[in-house]
């Protein structure tokens, strides 16, 4: 009954015209950044940040939910139309989406992707609504010791998002921690590495750092390929909707794929790409006609799309209840939440239930909007994909700088964004991923803070860190998580 009440309250908030407009902007912007190769959901969230400061936290959350869901869905558009996944989550959609588009049925491929994405997102949101409150209630028992263990576990996600080389991922994470230790020490208040420069005393501002690492560095990356004429290959859109019989057949794939995606999303360090390939594989395995996969099978589009949008609700479970990001996008989202003054964790459910209600209703509404916007704008997608880089990226760059400026009306923040943009570009060029840097920057100070508090409570007794069964549980799964990542990739710097 409480849940129904929460959702009704959430919908009352989300459907208010002003809030609904922000949701539409979030979903529409998400579809746009997801569809454009070179921009991802994490870049979309970063570009949204300057606007979030000017709205209340619940509205900001609604906008973020819209951007998150929209970007994951948007990735399928370019995957189907030009065989280039807009986001890593849409890589599996290329396998059958593009062959179907080549047959002149791009509209039907996008239609199936739209229905599957919306269904996956809605199913995973219902899972979030039932799992998150229980987990948050349990997490209320956590003290600084358990939180420190949890942050250690959160930092092990670095190993999972390290890309090809584990060593480079770990170095990137440690670099993030180094960036984070500049400024006030959380226990003593001493300004570390500030060199008596007033701007450095409070450390590097998080917003310009994130904007630089993700968005500005991406613009520099695009400069490398600008001579390679971009532009989408316009395909014949054709009919949009599958037949009723096809739809019934597809739901036998969509429903299990959505649950699979939700389950994968809950596990930190996984994400939409893994979920979509797993779902594709399972759909093929259980299909009566596996030989049609890879030639434009509708199930081959529905399964990965349901699964990757299924991860949205799943990834929100550890993010909202424990403050642990599940993948790169939720890592950036964690930074966004901290910036707008929302501290994810079990207390969020008690102290700011209106934010949680807005998330539930926002995610459900965002997925319904995906269905509407997806079908309404399907004929615009080929045009969107042909926006020249020479127009798009300068505008993004200007938005990045003005967004950085708007936080504290300081051109110093613009300079910080530029410096971290150049650093981010240099790291990308040498194969160091940006996501671990962000995890280090965000989780490092929290880990140091809770460690300090745990040691103050125990009067400096370090054994307190291993006296809690919950903490030991997190240490064990941290070790298992790292072991899994090491086993999955040999760790060679050139692999």
């Amino acid at each position, binding site marked *: 009954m409480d849940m129904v009440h929460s959702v009704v309250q959430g919908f009352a908030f989300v459907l208010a015209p002003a809030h609904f407009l922000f949701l539409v902007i979030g979903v529409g912007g998400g579809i746009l950044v997801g569809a454009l190769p070179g921009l991802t959901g994490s870049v979309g969230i970063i570009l949204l940040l*300057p*606007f979030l*400061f*000017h709205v209340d936290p619940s509205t900001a959350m609604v906008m973020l939910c819209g951007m998150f869901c929209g970007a994951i869905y948007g990735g399928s558009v370019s995957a189907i139309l030009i065989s280039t996944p807009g986001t890593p989550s849409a890589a599996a959609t290329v396998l059958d989406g593009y062959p179907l588009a080549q047959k002149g049925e791009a509209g039907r491929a996008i239609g199936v992707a739209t229905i599957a994405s919306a269904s996956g997102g809605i199913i995973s949101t219902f899972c979030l609504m039932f799992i998150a409150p229980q987990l948050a209630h349990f997490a209320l028992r956590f003290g600084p010791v358990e939180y420190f263990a949890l942050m250690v576990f959160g930092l092990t996600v670095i190993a999972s998002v390290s890309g090809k080389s584990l*060593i*480079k991922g*770990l*170095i990137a994470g*440690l*670099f993030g*921690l*180094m960036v984070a*230790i500049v400024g006030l*020490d959380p*226990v*003593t208040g*001493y300004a*570390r*590495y500030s060199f008596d420069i007033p701007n450095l005393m409070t450390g590097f501002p998080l917003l310009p750092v994130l904007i630089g690492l993700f968005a*500005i560095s991406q*613009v*520099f990356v695009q*400069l*490398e390929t*600008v*001579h390679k004429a971009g532009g989408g290959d316009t395909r014949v859109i054709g009919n949009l909707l599958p037949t009723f019989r096809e739809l019934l057949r597809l739901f036998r794939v969509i429903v299990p794929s959505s649950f699979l995606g939700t389950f994968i999303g809950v596990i930190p360090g996984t994400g939409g790409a893994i979920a979509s390939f797993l779902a594709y594989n399972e759909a093929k395995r259980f299909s009566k006609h596996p030989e049609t996969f890879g030639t434009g099978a509708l199930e081959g589009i529905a399964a990965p799309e349901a699964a990757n949008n299924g991860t949205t609700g799943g990834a929100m479970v550890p993010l909202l209840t424990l403050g642990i990001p599940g993948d790169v996008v939720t890592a950036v989202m964690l930074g966004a939440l901290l910036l707008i003054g929302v501290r994810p964790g079990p207390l969020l459910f008690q102290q700011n239930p209106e934010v949680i209600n807005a998330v539930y209703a926002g995610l459900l509404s965002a997925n319904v909007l995906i269905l509407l916007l997806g079908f309404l704008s399907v004929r615009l997608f080929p045009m969107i994909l042909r926006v020249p*880089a*020479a*127009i798009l*990226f*300068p*505008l993004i*760059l*200007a*938005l990045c*700088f*003005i967004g950085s*400026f*708007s936080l504290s*009306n300081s*051109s110093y923040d*613009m*300079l910080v964004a*530029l410096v971290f*943009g150049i650093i981010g*570009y240099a790291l990308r060029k*040498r*194969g*160091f991923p940006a996501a671990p840097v962000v995890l280090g920057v965000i989780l*490092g100070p929290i880990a*140091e803070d809770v*460690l*300090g508090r745990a*040691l*103050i409570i125990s*009067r*400096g007794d370090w054994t307190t860190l291993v006296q809690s069964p919950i903490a030991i549980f997190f240490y064990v799964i941290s070790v298992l998580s790292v072991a899994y990542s090491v086993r999955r990739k040999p760790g*060679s*710097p*050139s692999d």
Partner: protein
Amino acid sequence: MYKDVTMGAVFLALSVAMFGLTFRFPDQTIALPPTYFPRFVCVCMAVMAGLLILRSWPRPAAAPEPAETGRPPVLQRLKAGPWPRIAAMAALAFAYTETVDSLGYLLATGLFLAGSVVVFMERRPIVVLPVAVVGTGALYWVFRMVFKVPLPRFDLF
């Protein structure tokens, strides 16, 4: 290979420098001294950077062959690659961050946008000018008019 060794050396030097600077921190003994976390991170970074250097150290057989032309290969790569565009964009962005306070938002952003479009290899005025004007105006409308952010103004106005 050499690039990874260079990056490893950069991170190693950074960790050594940051570790050395911790000796200037005050010796406070409240539960967790301000030196503890930075030193822990620096040691971890030094170990990982050392590992990267060791794993990437080029073996004799992998030595690069000398370039066929008389020109140094690095210079060739610089000329052929995207570096001039990237350097130009970085310089333009730096100039923008340094002049926005004195030139004001409208003038500085308009010039920056026009320059950025040119760096992105679009030189037709019919594209450059509208992007600069419309982009500057749209951002001004969103940040100044909607969100009431006080954007920098030109000193003479």
